[in-house]
């Protein structure tokens, strides 16, 4: 009798254990997959000096101090329906762009390291300083839809060019003869991605119904040729060939070949 009781209680204990393990597994799987979905934020524009997105969603403690430090109310904290990791800061340039404050108040207040001053540190004579240089920010890059751009139609509009805080550097105007009329010129805006900060002042200024120029995160909006293509007409690039020991299709040491903003990209 006592034995069967023991057996029963052991069986019950095992049952409870398995039931608990099952619940734990179920909870873990549901929670884990929800978390993976919820952290997806590929199309989000982050504040200046943000570390790369994959690390950013880990690092950000979601306190909103950067949002409060922003004098233009550009930054907002993501709510449940913002299609990005809940509680993390982002901005929508068509609503309010980043006005590129020279003292960059949003960055030094970050307690977690998600916004890192090092990413926009001012260089004086090649030496990194503690001071920020907002022109080095790489929040995103402006993309231009030529079909929707009035300037590409031949109508004079240089709203984005004029709005750009790095006027003549991040956006330049390309002059082309307008063959259709025979007496006018196209003034076509062209974005230079290595200079563009992604502040979105161009997107904000664009006069079309839905902006023809708009900012996307660099991870989404940029391509990369790969180290095995060499510009034969560029002596500096030719040097790379000499340094290369053997044929490599994979990138050897990415660090020195990357542009200064390419730390933002995923390297696989």
């Amino acid at each position: 009798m006592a034995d069967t009781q023991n057996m029963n209680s052991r069986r019950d204990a095992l049952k409870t254990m398995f039931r608990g393990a099952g619940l734990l597994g179920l909870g873990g799987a549901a929670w884990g997959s929800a978390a993976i979905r919820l952290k997806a934020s590929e199309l989000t524009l982050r504040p200046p000096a943000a570390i790369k997105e994959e690390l950013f969603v880990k690092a950000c403690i979601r306190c909103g101090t950067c949002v409060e430090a922003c004098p233009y109310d550009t930054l907002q904290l993501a709510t449940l329906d913002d299609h990005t990791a809940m509680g993390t800061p982002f901005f929508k340039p068509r609503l309010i762009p980043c006005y590129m404050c020279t003292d960059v108040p949003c960055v030094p207040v970050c307690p977690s390291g998600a916004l890192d001053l090092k990413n926009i540190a001012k260089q004086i004579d090649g030496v990194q300083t503690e001071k920020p240089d907002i022109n080095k920010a790489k929040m995103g890059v402006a993309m231009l839809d030529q079909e929707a751009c009035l300037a590409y139609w031949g109508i004079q509009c240089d709203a984005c060019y004029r709005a750009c805080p790095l006027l003549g550097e991040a956006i330049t105007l390309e002059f082309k003869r307008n063959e259709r009329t025979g007496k006018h010129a196209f003034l076509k805006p062209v974005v230079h991605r290595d200079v563009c900060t992604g502040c979105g002042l161009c997107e904000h200024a664009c006069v079309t119904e839905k902006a023809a120029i708009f900012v996307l995160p660099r991870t989404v909006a940029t391509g990369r040729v790969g180290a095995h293509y060499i510009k034969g007409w560029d002596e500096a690039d030719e040097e790379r060939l000499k340094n290369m020991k053997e044929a490599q299709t994979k990138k050897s040491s990415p660090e020195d070949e990357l542009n200064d903003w390419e730390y933002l990209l995923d390297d696989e």
Partner: protein
Amino acid sequence: MIGNTCLMMSRIIWRNRYIILRRTVQIGLLVLFGGANWWGWKFLMGNYSSAYVFETFYLADPHAVLQTFAAGFVMSTDAIVGGIIVLLFYALIAGRSFCSWVCPVNMITDLATYLRKKWKITSKENFFSISRKTRYWVLGLGIVLSPIVGVAAFEIINPITLLHRGIIFGFGMGWAVIIALFLFDLLVVEYGWCGHLCPLGAFYSATSRFALIKVKHDVNKCSMCMKCFGVCHEEQVLHIVGKHSGFIKNECSNCGRCIEVCEDNALKFSIYNTKI
């Protein structure tokens, strides 16, 4: 006549002294945080995940810092030091008092419990029950999941910080989560969120075992009226009441409600392991 009213008023206030103090602290902190965002005050910027105090130092949620560490990111010194300050404050001094003195979710769940009792929605039907230990599993699971999903696993679904942020920065659709939490506490499980599931409560319970401020029970004064059991959110911590004198430990959140309802002066705030 007026004297009588005054006496009655002061009696009511006295009988609710801790709940008044708690609401003052909870709402006061929200006003300070809100003021930073709405009117540019510089006392307390940020929210409960991390706060920038007087523009001089940071406080941080140690549970969030821990999850982030588990996910594979070591935060800046500001956040780590801030997390340690907060952890030490609760672990050594205040106990699990974050839950009932600071956390705004407490006001929501207290309201749910109040209505639950008023409308007599008892859990006698017991169609759904969970163990109070579940929260420790949730706590552990959150830490284990963080490196797997590559993000602080609880922070990404955290309804507590969602409410903090919602009040200070705007809700979006977040209010739906808060309503769900309220309904869960109102209709499904009594003290369901705070007393059974919340891993932050579990975190502070687990770390504040030796905190100084604790409720002390004097069995010699106790008349076994059981009123404290009626108001306690964590009844299991009162297991010594009426049996022997000692300190209330473990999941007690120092809300002081039991002290207010005790008519025998058998419960009071005291310093752990002293005769005070």
